[in-house]
């Protein structure tokens, strides 16, 4: 199919069948990370630092090892030395070396014959600490005299004389920013902060690891990407990747937080030390919050210039983000996304990746983009408001479109931002009249979308059904969307395609389900695999008919002579061809290994109505609209689900969620009661509009839908609160106490 002639109507794509894993998941049969057990299995427990920053002077495990049922204790001494870089960072985060770097940092781990014995034994491991000065706040960590997290961690990009916790500096842009500001009628600056939040998946990390003295091992684990688990564990443990077979369990949410390793190498190291017995390690919620995830906290300065008509002339952003005690805050993506929605003649970005005594940041849905949007969309809303412009019209006037040179470099191909603005404007929610203490907020968001290493294998069974083996764990219905695309391509029924997420030994390398890539990349790979099986089947039909294989086409699940000149033969269906596979050349299969090109960017526009209680400062979400360009919604219900889930995570970030550190550097709220994610009674229905501007780089037009939806809610909610109260909040979360204090200050004048 020529790429510029994407079909608009399909037999199956765009329908809403039951997901193939649905029955298992409503009956409790589906097996998640902690649901797996193996014969002879031990249980593990982890000893974690109660200090934000401390030298580990001594670890004494003798009492623990004396407890009946305890089989092994591991510390950093049980891990090989690895050179500086990704694997050193991962090893240091898996288990502390000379120093504990954050509250919750693993220091030792123990395996025993039961979970209770393991927990008892962990309490018997004595660790002697020398407490060191610590820093958890991003702006404090940026100071010249801040406690130093790690000497020598800065890379080449950091100029001499920078604050000691700066490990990476980004500095890029284009156009003449000063001339842009000089030509503006209105120039404004703002300072914005966001607190760290956690991905908040309901399933804690869990695995069963087994590693023998022969260096061969297996792992069962909840993860977004089991090839990453394999590669990272191998790197941290000094074993060969191919000797570790990793099976992904069903996954209870990830949102980016399960794209890396945390405690998985501990279970393998404990297994190796206890004679190769399998070791199960399941985190508690407090361990999840203290030692996994989260995202960065951010301190941001934005400056924007515009004409009196609201047309942007120039913009600058200076972002400081701490991503814990390791390099890797999402400041780069934050900068790249900051102004991506708009046409800008001149733009400059400056970013600092900063170390602090907090857990190592992991990816969280559109990493960096929500914070950037909070700052930029907040200031834009303020400025367009000052000029008396409609927020949707003003965005339309400045919207990035096909041919726009993006703020971060590439020139956009066909994108659908304008279409989302139009659809938002036409939605019924926009005509609802608001009452006292109510306000409406608009914001836009962007995510690049992504391809990544992808391997898929497809095989036709003897009865003409198809099995598809993929390596991207199904978090939100991807088996259904891949089965729809394969069935559409092969011309068979959806129910006749079974998609399985297979272990690392069964396919080439796959990157995780991340970056909104599964339906795009795995989907495209599966379609390519189906096309190559079709080609094989056409070849077999051509041979049977004695005609040239180019004279055979595949239509509606059958090989047919292509046109009258090819000859007159009745169609050969996939069922007929499959039944004869053994005598016509053997098994019929297709596969794809590659990094599928043709990624299509995704834009969204959100509109939220809120009501603020003037007595308590509590913000209630009255109605919420998500409009986003999916490219093509393969299974619209799961596209809507991504929009709704992203919006609600963003609402949580805007209103409730934050990491609260005490003066002692300890996390104050490591339970769901205090780290409060949105609950059903906090919310209305979340309205969605799926815009479809097909991505020319995908056979069915898919862009990817997971990430963008979390980006606009932060500023949309803040903008709505500004409309309701006249107070522009520059700091998240906009908790009732914070907003009430601001309202009281305003009342006092």
């Amino acid at each position: 199919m020529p790429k510029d002639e994407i079909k608009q109507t399909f037999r199956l794509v765009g329908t809403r069948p039951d997901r193939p894993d649905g029955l298992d998941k409503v009956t409790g049969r589906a097996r998640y990370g902690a649901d797996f057990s193996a014969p002879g299995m031990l249980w593990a427990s982890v000893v974690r630092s109660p200090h934000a920053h401390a030298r580990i002077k001594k670890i004494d495990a003798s009492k623990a090892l004396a407890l009946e049922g305890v089989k092994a204790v591991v510390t950093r001494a049980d891990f090989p030395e690895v050179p500086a870089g990704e694997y050193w960072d991962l090893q240091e985060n898996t288990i502390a070396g000379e120093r504990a770097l954050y509250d919750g940092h693993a220091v030792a781990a123990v395996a025993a014959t039961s979970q209770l014995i393991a927990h008892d034994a962990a309490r018997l491991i004595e660790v002697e600490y020398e407490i060191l000065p610590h820093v958890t706040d991003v702006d404090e960590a940026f100071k010249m005299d801040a406690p130093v997290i790690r000497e020598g961690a800065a890379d080449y990009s950091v100029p001499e004389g920078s604050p000691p916790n700066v490990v990476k500096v980004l500095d890029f842009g284009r156009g003449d920013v000063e001339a842009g500001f000089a030509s503006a009628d209105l120039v404004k600056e703002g300072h914005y902060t966001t607190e760290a939040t956690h991905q908040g998946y309901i399933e804690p990390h869990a695995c069963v690891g087994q590693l023998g003295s022969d260096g061969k091992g297996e792992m069962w684990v909840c993860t977004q990407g089991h090839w990453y688990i394999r590669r990272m564990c191998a790197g941290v443990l000094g074993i060969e990747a191919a000797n570790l077979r990793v099976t992904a369990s069903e996954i209870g949410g990830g949102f980016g937080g399960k794209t890396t390793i945390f405690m998985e190498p501990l279970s393998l190291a404990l297994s190796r030390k206890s004679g190769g017995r399998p070791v199960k390690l399941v985190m508690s919620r407090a361990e999840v919050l203290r030692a996994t995830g989260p995202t960065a906290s951010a301190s941001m300065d934005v400056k924007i210039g515009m004409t009196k008509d609201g047309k942007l002339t120039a913009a600058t952003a200076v972002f400081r983000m701490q991503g814990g005690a390791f390099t890797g805050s999402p400041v780069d993506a934050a900068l790249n996304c900051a102004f991506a929605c708009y046409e800008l003649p001149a733009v400059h970005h400056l970013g600092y990746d900063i170390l602090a005594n907090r857990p190592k940041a992991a990816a969280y849905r559109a990493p960096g983009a929500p914070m950037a949007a909070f700052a930029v969309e907040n200031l834009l809303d303020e400025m367009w408001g000052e000029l008396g412009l409609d927020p949707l019209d003003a965005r339309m006037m400045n919207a990035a479109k096909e041919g726009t040179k993006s703020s971060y470099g590439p020139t956009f191909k066909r994108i659908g931002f304008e279409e989302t603005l139009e659809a938002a404007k036409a939605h019924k929610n926009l005509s609802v009249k608001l009452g006292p203490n109510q306000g409406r907020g608009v914001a836009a968001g962007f995510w690049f979308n992504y391809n990544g290493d992808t391997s898929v294998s497809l095989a036709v069974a003897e009865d003409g059904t198809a099995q598809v083996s993929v390596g991207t764990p199904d978090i939100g219905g991807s088996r259904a969307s891949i089965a729809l695309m394969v069935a559409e391509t092969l011309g068979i029924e959806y129910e006749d395609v079974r998609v399985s997420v297979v272990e690392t030994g069964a396919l080439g390398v796959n990157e995780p389900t991340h970056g909104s890539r599964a339906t795009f990349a795995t989907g495209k790979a599966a379609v390519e695999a189906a096309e190559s099986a079709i080609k094989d089947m056409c070849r077999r039909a051509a041979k049977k008919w004695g005609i040239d294989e180019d004279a055979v086409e595949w239509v509606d699940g059958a090989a047919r002579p292509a046109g009258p000149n090819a000859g007159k033969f009745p169609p050969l269906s996939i069922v007929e061809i499959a039944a004869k596979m053994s005598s016509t050349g053997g098994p019929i299969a297709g596969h794809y290994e590659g990094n599928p090109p043709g990624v299509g960017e995704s834009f969204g526009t959100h509109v939220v109505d809120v009501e603020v209680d003037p007595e308590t400062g509590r913000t209630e979400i009255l109605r919420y609209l998500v409009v986003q360009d999916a490219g093509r919604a393969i299974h619209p219900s799961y596209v809507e689900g991504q929009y709704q889930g992203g919006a609600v995570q963003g609402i949580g970030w805007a209103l409730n969620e934050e990491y609260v550190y005490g003066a002692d550097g300890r996390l104050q709220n490591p339970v769901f009661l205090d780290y409060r994610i949105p609950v059903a009674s906090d919310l209305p229905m979340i309205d969605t509009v799926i815009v479809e501007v097909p991505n020319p780089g995908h056979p069915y037009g898919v862009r990817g839908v997971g990430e963008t939806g979390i980006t606009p809610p932060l500023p949309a909610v803040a903008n709505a609160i500004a409309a309701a109260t006249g107070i522009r909040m520059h700091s998240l979360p906009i908790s009732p106490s914070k907003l009430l204090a601001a309202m009281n200050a305003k009342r006092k004048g």
Partner: protein
Amino acid sequence: MSKIHVTTTVNGDTVEFLADPRETLLDCLRDKLGLTGSKEGCGTGDCGACSVTVDGVLVSSCLVLGVEAQGKSVTTIEGMDKDGELHPLQRHFVEKAALQCGFCTPGFLVAAKALLDKNPDPTETEVRYWLAGNLCRCTGYDKIVRAVMDAAAEMRG
């Protein structure tokens, strides 16, 4: 510490297990009886993923001790379908795409069934408040609330 012998009824079957007095009902269901449909999301009664009923009362099984199940009747997600026929809630959850990762789903189903057993015609607000003790991070609750309302409507006939 010596273990205590517990005899109880789970999903209609009489079962026995030895429980350490510190073990939760959730631990016993999952690790001793192999009923892993009930999930631990928090262990502190905040997320509802471990929801079961004990003598008809909806509880977080992570906050009940295993030994407390002695002589009681426990119903878990594994007991929700009847001989393979799904409860209308289960069917509506699949048909309405009310789950994404599915980890919180067993808890939501058990809690929603407890609601409909008490109140066959709940308003949207009643559904939202009843289910406020069940956390879902994937869906934003929209499709869950709709599935519960639709199942209730179907069950009312």
